[in-house]
């Protein structure tokens, strides 16, 4: 997906960009409103992440202009302000959602997904792999014409594996993606979700292989 991040704090922006890229997204970074305007006029983004306090103006002004120019790109506001006073005006001005700094990356992704799902006009990003159709936004998995709605953690696990079939993901890497840091669970909890995914993929050509001591990988050669 293509993101536009509007954030003046270089440190934070760098971290967010790296993190999004790590997930395979394309990110453009603007330092202020003027830069953001030129970006958004030049190309279309799937989602805009907008900071409120910017050096050359208020993020809300950009939001207003953006809505006035009839662009439907969903906007998630990154706010460091007190939720108490800002929330209402943000939603009134046309933000689709907001997230308070500092944020859990998983939560940001979840919100992005929720916003994308709500925006009916947004293009569906269906991933096809052999006889498998998977929509990471809606969380729908179609195997042999049978549609299954994946639960959130199953979805996120599959999304990770399906993006790079054949790549070996360590247990801990998967764990980091699925669980928040204050969940006091062991890495073995991953096995439960792997088992569930395997059950969903039973009838397809795609399967998850366990590599003892290394981790897991997605294989698409079952029917071969």
């Amino acid at each position, binding site marked *: 997906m293509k993101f536009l991040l509007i954030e003046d704090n270089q440190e934070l922006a760098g*971290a967010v960009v790296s993190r999004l890229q790590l997930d395979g997204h394309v990110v453009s970074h603007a330092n202020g409103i003027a830069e953001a305007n030129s970006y958004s006029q030049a190309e279309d983004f799937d989602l805009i992440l907008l900071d409120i306090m910017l050096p050359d103006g208020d993020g809300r002004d950009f939001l207003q202009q953006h809505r006035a120019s009839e662009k439907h790109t969903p906007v998630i506001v990154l706010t460091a302000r007190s939720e108490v006073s800002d929330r209402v005006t943000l939603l009134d001005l046309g933000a689709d959602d907001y997230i308070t700094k500092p944020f859990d990356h998983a939560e940001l992704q979840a919100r992005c997904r929720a916003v994308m799902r709500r925006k009916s006009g947004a293009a569906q990003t269906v991933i096809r792999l052999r006889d498998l159709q998977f929509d990471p936004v809606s969380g729908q998995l179609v195997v042999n014409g049978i549609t299954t709605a994946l639960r959130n953690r199953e979805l996120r696990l599959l999304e990770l594996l399906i993006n790079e079939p054949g790549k070996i993901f360590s247990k801990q890497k998967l764990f980091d993606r699925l669980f928040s*840091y*204050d969940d006091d669970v062991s890495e073995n909890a991953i096995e439960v979700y792997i088992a569930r995914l395997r059950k969903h993929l039973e009838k397809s050509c795609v399967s998850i292989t366990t590599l003892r001591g290394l981790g897991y990988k997605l294989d698409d050669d079952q029917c071969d």
Partner: protein
Amino acid sequence: MTDTSVTNISGSLRRRLAITLIVGICIFAVLLFFIIRLYAAQIAQQSQDSILSASVTSMLDAAKVRDGQVAMDIPYSSFSMLATPQDDRIFYAIYQDDQLLSGYESLTLPETYNNTGTVFRSIDFMDTPVRQVIASRTLSGLTTPAALIVTVAQTQDNLSVTLRDIAKNAAMIVLGFFLLAVVFSAWASSTTIAPLNRLTQSVTRRGPKDLRPVTRPVPAEMAPLVSSLNHLMQRLDDSLNQSEQFITEAAHRVRTPIATVRSHAEITLQRVDKEENRQALKAMIRATDETSRAAGQLLDHAMISLRASQLNSEPIDLSELIQELVRSLTPVADLKDIEIRLDAAPDVRIHGDSILVQNAVRNLIDNALKYSPTESTINIQVRANPKPSIVINDQGDGFFHDEKDKLTDRFSRGRNSTGTIGSGLGLTIANDVAKAHSGSLRITNNHNGGACVTLSF
């Protein structure tokens, strides 16, 4: 929304003005009454005197000297003219020099009377107060000239009845005047106070955020007050703005660096494989989360305290508010595969500050999410009866009994709970909001173990 119970009231301007006017009028009315009575008494006495005088004169005129003797054919009218509705008694005496010719012997002349002129006096005769007139005439035709002195006295029954009637009428008039004056003074005092009331109303009607100066014209006497009020409101406005700005600024300053730290930590975690380092990074992320959460709640709490002191009262649709909150929190719940079930009765309305209510409920749901196990359900109910309330049930471990007591304890300490973080302050915020809306927060455990938090208004 103003709380008059804390206002230190000392008297009432309106009452003071009215009482001053009424007391003044009262004194004036009593004075008027006595003046009327005194004047009436004088006039009544004068009219009695003039009739007595006429009576005496007619008697003196009737005297003749016949055969060296005084003869007197007193006209009938001399006495009948003295007839009064109260049948006053009359007494008379006729003297030739010092010698009584006729009449009441005991009706004596004043010692100072020098046989000339007409004299009036009030005396007691036969144990009754009477008005006496004495007049005389020089008789010629006798061997030596002599003075004929006639005195007539009349009781004052009619006079006192007349005076009583006049006093009664005067009292009625004065009472009427007094009542009119009381009505007038009530009107006058309320008219005088009216601009003050209008000012009060215009200030009271304002929303809590409306701190504009009062610009409507006011009487000169109130100008200093309004001017001071405007100054005060300006200062209050400045101070509020500064406070809000400070809180906003503080949040921004604290959160952005934390966000940077956290993001970097997260990224680093992706790249580090060594278990020791991973644990350290995780601990770091948890610490930033704790810090940001605590900072956020402290700032929220400060903002709420600021708002609660001047509560914004607007109609709130609770169902709608909760629906939106749930929508906003669903992505977070999804992360743990927690399902939020909302059972909202339609059109549950209260009056209050929507931002405060939203924050309170958000804190409660946050708590529920935090303590709920993976793939569980949180049930939220919005009820209209018996009181508008929100009930949040989770499937976590619930509250420990001793902890529950402590939480209750903490509520009573209110803002003193700065030493605690996390859920404690979240509940404190919810409790403060409930109190500000004259509602309550109740914490119980479900029989199957989960916590049940009820926020009612």
